[in-house]
Every structure is written in structure tokens, then in C-alpha cells.
């Protein structure tokens, strides 16, 4: 997939649009990915609290959090998560938070 250019730096994306190197993530990149991958022009506070929680969890545990943890920690209701990220928590939220693609049926 063609790379995204962020602050003059070219960042490589996998076939699925996930960061090839998750460590390169930053918040500007999340904004760019949101636009390119999810068609989101604006990230609201709710978006950010979900993205930041997922990112923090990933940095600490090297995996994606359960959607339950996302809801419980951020206070965003489950159904709202699916509205915020049309591609869902995995291909939507986790992607914007710079995680690699989770294994399994996603």
C-alpha cells in the first residue's frame, strides 16, 4: 500500500493499511490515517480517548485491549464505538492507534 507522508517523513503501511512499524506512531499520523483509512475528517474527544487508551495498552502489553476494557476505561458505550470507528475496533480504532493487524477473523 502507498505510504503516508507525515511531517515530511514517509511512513510505510501494510497491505491492510496498518503501520508496518508500529513504533513510528504519533498523533499526527492518527489524524492522517483517520482520513485515509476511515474517511474521518475530524477526530472528536471520544475518538481520542479510545485511540489513546488503545495505544497505551499496546505500549504496555504489546497487544490490543478487549473492547470491554475500552468501554470501561473510556466510558464510551459499546454501540458508540462502532459509530465512532465504522470499520470497528480492530480495523478502525486499533489501526488509528498504530497497532499491527490483530490475528484471527479480523
Amino acid at each position, binding site marked *: 500500500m502507498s505510504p503516508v507522508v507525515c511531517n515530511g517523513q514517509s511512513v510505510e503501511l*501494510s*497491505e*491492510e493499511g*496498518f503501520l*508496518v512499524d508500529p513504533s513510528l506512531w504519533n498523533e499526527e499520523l492518527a489524524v492522517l490515517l483517520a482520513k485515509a483509512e476511515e474517511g474521518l475528517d475530524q477526530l472528536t474527544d471520544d475518538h481520542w480517548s479510545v485511540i489513546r487508551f488503545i495505544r497505551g495498552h499496546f505500549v504496555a502489553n504489546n*497487544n*490490543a485491549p*478487549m*473492547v*470491554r*476494557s475500552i468501554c*470501561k476505561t473510556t466510558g464510551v458505550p*459499546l*454501540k458508540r464505538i462502532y459509530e465512532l470507528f*465504522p*470499520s*470497528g*475496533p*480492530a*480495523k478502525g480504532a486499533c489501526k488509528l492507534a498504530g497497532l499491527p*493487524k*490483530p*490475528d*484471527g*477473523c*479480523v
Partner: protein
Amino acid sequence: MPELDELESRLDALTEADFQQGLEVFRGKLKKAEASYLNSCVHCGLCASSCHYHRMDSTLENIPAHKLELISSVFKRNFTTMGRIAPGLVGAKPFDREMAKAWIDAVFGRCSLCGRCSINCTIGIALPKIFRAARAALGAMGLVPPDLQATVDNSLLHGNNMAVTKQDWVETVQWIEEELQLETGDPGAKLPLDKQGAKFLFTVNPREPKFFPLSLQASAKVFWAAKEDWTLASDGGWDLTNYGLFNCNDEQAGTITKHLVDAMARLGCKTLVIGECGHGYGAARWEGPEWLRKSYPFEVKSILELMDEYVRDGRIQLDPSKNTAPVTLHDPCNLVRHGGICEAQRRVLRKATTNFTEMTPNRVENFCCGGGGGQLAMARYKQRRIQSGGMKAEQIKASGAKVVVAPCHNCIDQLMELNKEYQLNVQIKTVAEMVAEALIPNP
């Protein structure tokens, strides 16, 4: 891409012994049915249009017979007299690096093992049987795409394919139980865990607890309404998936099946109930006993069959006016064509909705969504997966439906992507979600 390199470097490092090992494993997968298949293809080419890959990208490489030929050319060269005497005449070819690469591209990269070509073959060759043997051979040579293998390894290591911990799973079940109690207003609504001697052990796709628990809640709501005696396993044996069906390593597949068999024995349940999942049903219902080389001492059913029985026996009452948007139904290959479950979901949907339209074609002739056969796990083939899914997207558009029901979580994920890529503007739901929506609470 690092992953691609991994497979490429593995290809470069192949030794003669690896090829011999691959051939041996391949040969071991063949019984007389497969031997007959490998003697039958007449290269008529009529299978081309049956394949969703070829429909959306009509190259030679996407013709099922061409994929088959890559494999049978090696078969001829190594296992037939004519292939040894006159390889040029009968198209026999050696199994070398180039051929191994072509096999990977054909059987992992251009096939979802959906079996639509079997039904349409002029002769009657069940091609996926041969493709599976080839995948197994490649596996023995260390040539399974790493992300597909990682999904299998997760199951082997963690007991589920997304590496969900026991604590995370149990907490999610408890959370969904609270949500269900809120939804039904019944504090007695439960998602029982480890209930000894329950009639049904219900199993789910890890994608549900991890990211999409609403379908689990919907299934639980149906069981609640039917006053069913059911349980979930807290540890080992709650995950219905088995990607061993896709890497075609029967030993690993058998080990994963054993998680379910052991949970059934541990909890003393009568019937193993597979949630809405095509490959999971195929793996548990059909292939599991073959991998383990013994019959199960219990029954296996799809939740679709149970819902069908509930509706038929009046154990649940449905109000179809709760689902009035035009609905269509996707037929997962492993559940319908390869699984034999075809009408139950239709009977249920007709009772749960007011505006149900079939896709064309449907049932045994259905098109794969494009995400089957492990495609969803193999990132390198994403473009092809989305492109081949165009067939399904066209079908959905033509149906005029606003809701696509898919009794398979794998298909659902692919359909969600198709929805985005092809701007279908549909909702994608499980059968249980439709039923849960239409449930009339019991008096």
C-alpha cells in the same frame, strides 16, 4: 514488507530434502478419490466462470483448472508412469522452487477453498481436496504465510486464536451478562460459565469477546428466551475457530479440535453448539472427527439449527415487524455448500423479518464473500481478497437489501470491508442479532 521477506527467504533456503518432504506429505493426503480427481481434468476451462477470483480478474492464473494443473503437473511427474516417460506431452513438471512459489500463489493466494468449482466442474472434481493437499505439503516445507500460521499458533498456545486470556474472557462474559440483564430487565438472564451437565456447550468466535460482543449478547438473549440449558466454558473450549482447516496441518487442527472435545468431557454436556461461523462449523462438525480419527461421543449442532427448532416448536416467539428493512442472506461456503446447513437460517429469517430477499445465486451455488479459506488472515493477498469480493458486492447491490445477514463472523468481517470499499451502505448482522431484535419476551 517483512512478512513477504520471511516467505521469500524460506523459499530461497529450500533444500532437496524439503521438496521430498513436501511430496511425501502431499502423497499422504491422497486417497482413491483424490487419485481419481488427479486423473480426470480435461482442461475444458468451463470452471473459470465459477470462480469469484476469475470473475473479477479474468487471468489464466485464476482459472481453477489452472490452479489444479500446477498441482497435477507435479503429481504426474512424481507419481505417474506417463509423467516420467513423456513429461512434455502430458504436462508433467518437477517440484522445484519456482513451482513451490506458484503453488503458494495458487492455493493460498487465489483460492478460498469455497468449492464452487467442484459443483460446476464438467467432470465433478472436488478441487479444494487437492488444494488442501497442496497447502499441507507447503506447510511441511514451512511455506504457510506467517500471519495465517500465527493464527493457528495462537490457538495452540493460548487455546483461542486471538490470544484472549482467561480473565479477559470471563470478565467480558460477565459484562455481557450485565448488559443482557439491562436489556431484558431480567436479573435472572445469565451467561452461564462452566455449568456442569448443561445440555449445550456453546462456543463463539474470539472476535466476539475481543471486539464484537453484541452478537454474543444476541445469542445469549435467544437462549434466555428459549429457557435453554446451556453453558460457556471458562477456559479452553470456548473458541469455535480452527485455522488448522486453512493451514491444512491435520495434526495442529486435531490438537485445536481437542480443546472442544475436552471441554465437552469436562463439563459433561450433550451437544456441542457452534456459534455462527462457517469454518468453525466445518472444522468442528465435519473435519474434527477425521483429524482425531474417532467419532465424537456427542452431537454437534449449529446455533442456526437450534434457533430453527425454537421457532418451529414455539419456544421463542418472533415479531417480524421489528425487522422491516429489506434483508438478504449470505451463504457461507463452509456452512452451506460444504456444511449442509442451508434451510434452517432461511426458515428463521422468514419468521424474523418482513422483507427477505434471496441473493442470486444462492444456497449451494452461492459465491464466496472472498474472505474464506484463511484469506482474511493473509494480509499479502488483501487486494485480491477485496477484488474477488466484488462478486459478492454485486450480488448485494442487486438484491436491493439494506441488511445483509451472514451466519459467519469471518464473512462478516469481509462483508464489512466490502461495504466500505464498494459503498454498499448496508448493515451486516448475524442471524441471532435479527432474532434477538424480533424476540417477543416470554410472559
